């Protein structure tokens, strides 16, 4: 390779790599809002599947908190949580059984939670949702995949102080650190619960990582073997 070839390789290869690095890894030119989780509760959100002193996992505690504090306005259909007013309706159980199916997520079956299609749920809960809309200005969103859309920092800060993050929102401040010592912890547990619904559990994640490493290693090794085979073959054929 001549010096000119090396310069060309650097120009074309380098600019291509930089270009895709900016697009696919880190774009320093793009403005992104950043929200941080408070240091003292980071551990809670980091692993929602950890057992607490009460013998339940953080995610389970977060689920109870979610049902108690959030489900009067928000549903979380991917884990079988619907509006409180809907779930207290005796007819709802029949709808869950006939139109829904038990929640099955990452290999775990939850027999007592049901996934009901969106249109069926919204038709059944039409009046409840309209009442909420009349009171709050809009229908409070379903929070099934909100964790994936917003990330833990945003959710944590938003639940802790909605007006600060999104001025003018109709979301009330349920957990106020001024009056409730455990407010931050509770919010973190709720965020951890929302994470547990959308992110594969550690066991599954380990499986995926091992699978990924094996697949990548397989292709690298196969490439090397092919290259070696080619070199030997071409030497024998006199092409090299």
């Amino acid at each position, binding site marked *: 390779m001549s010096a000119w070839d090396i310069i060309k390789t650097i*120009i*074309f290869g380098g*600019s*291509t790599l930089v*270009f*895709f690095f*900016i*697009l*696919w*890894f880190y*774009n320093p*030119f*793009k*403005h992104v809002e950043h929200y941080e989780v408070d240091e003292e509760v980071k551990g809670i959100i980091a692993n929602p599947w950890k057992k607490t002193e009460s013998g339940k996992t953080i995610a389970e505690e977060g689920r109870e908190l979610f049902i108690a504090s959030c489900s009067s306005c928000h549903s979380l*259909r*991917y884990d079988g949580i619907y509006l409180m007013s809907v779930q207290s309706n005796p007819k709802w159980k029949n709808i869950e059984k006939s139109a829904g199916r038990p929640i*099955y*997520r*990452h*290999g775990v079956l939850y027999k007592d939670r049901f*996934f009901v*299609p*969106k*249109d069926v749920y919204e038709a059944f809960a039409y009046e409840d949702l309209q009442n909420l809309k009349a009171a709050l200005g*809009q229908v409070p*969103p*379903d929070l*099934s*995949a*909100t964790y*994936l*859309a*917003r*990330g833990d920092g945003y959710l944590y800060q938003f639940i802790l102080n909605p007006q600060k993050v999104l001025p003018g929102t109709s979301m009330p401040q349920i957990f106020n650190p001024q009056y409730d010592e455990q407010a931050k912890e509770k919010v973190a547990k709720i965020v951890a619960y929302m994470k547990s619904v959308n992110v*594969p559990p550690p066991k599954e994640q380990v499986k*995926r*990582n091992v*699978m*990924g*490493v094996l*697949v*990548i290693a397989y*292709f*690298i090794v*196969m*490439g*090397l073997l*092919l*290259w070696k*085979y*080619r070199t030997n*073959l*071409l030497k024998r*054929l006199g*092409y090299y």
Partner: protein
Amino acid sequence: MGLIEKVIDWIDERAHVKDIYRTQMVEYKVPKNLTFPYVFGVLALVTFAIQIISGMVLILYYKPSIADAFDSATYTIMGEIPFGWLFRHIHAAGANFFMAIVYLHMFTGIYYNAYKRPRELVWIVGWLIYFVLILTALSGYLLPWGQLSYWGFIVTTEIPGSLADAPILRDIFKAIAETIVLWMKGGYIVTDVTLGRVFGSHVLIYPLILLALVGIHLYLVRAAGISNPEGIEYDKKKNPDKFVPFHPYVTLKEGAYVMWYLAVFFFFVFFHMGHFLPADNFEPANPLKTPPHIAPEWYLLGFYEVFRSIPSKFWGFVAFNALLIFLLILPLLDWSPLKSARRRPLFFVAFVVFMISSMVLTILGTMEPTPMNAKLGLIFSFLVFGFFLSLPIISFIEYGWYKAKGGKQQ
């Protein structure tokens, strides 16, 4: 004789595969000095295969209705179905890789002037593939029914509506614009019907057209022969030392490259999906709530930035369509018989300017539309246009030099 040979003989007796193998693989000769970028063609083919196979799995679980689309993608495929996540990751990463590889393939073609005689048809069919690929990508992007999908689709389908801002014949242009927008959207608003139509075209119509075009493209490459990085057309019979058999010389080399490409691809699939399944798209589509920053996917940002930085909507629309048309008529613009940037210093400089400007335009497209960015966008749009419009002149000058040297190939 082993079992495998027996099976091959059995097939050969009936299908004559050994003849095809000998004539099409071993006796088929390609230039000996093919460089690394020539691999992008086969990588594009591999990615196309990946997309078709992973799409076949996704289509089994995806539901094309606005009530179920988001849930079937985010709940059913990502959680309920074993390895559904893997196929969605592969399909999403594959779409981005496909566009990336096709762009690299196109830039390679421009660099080595692979669009010149006798390969004009290869280039034109390749352009058609690129165009259908954009349509496929746009239609596929709507299917997860997230906020980005929904609003991205609306913005894209309403871009032809800028024709209504024409300085003259406004009524006629407006009628044309409305018709195009209605065709693309399938109605005045994006509803269930639109989603069904887009789904149908994404999973059946566009892939079929693509398959046919890719077949024609491959046939044309075989018919016209692979271009030479030196830009010199050697005769296979007169200069046999310049050629090597396709198999095993090229197949094994590109086979190894394909393996390493797949290693990179699966790194993204398993460990780095954040940019291919963007977070904003995990919010279900909401027609009542417009997100603050809507931009097309990265592979259209260059065109989008040209459109955005030109103050008039109409001329912006004309400009980015002109870019597409310029790409199509490259063989006409660059008319001289000289080939390959290796032998064309002026063209080399123009190409580098063109490549850098298109990258900068794409990156500017990811930024917010400030006046400063609009000015930069305008400058780099001019550079991109400058590349295409200067090609006839560059051809003229370089052809003059070539003639002055006596018109020899080397």
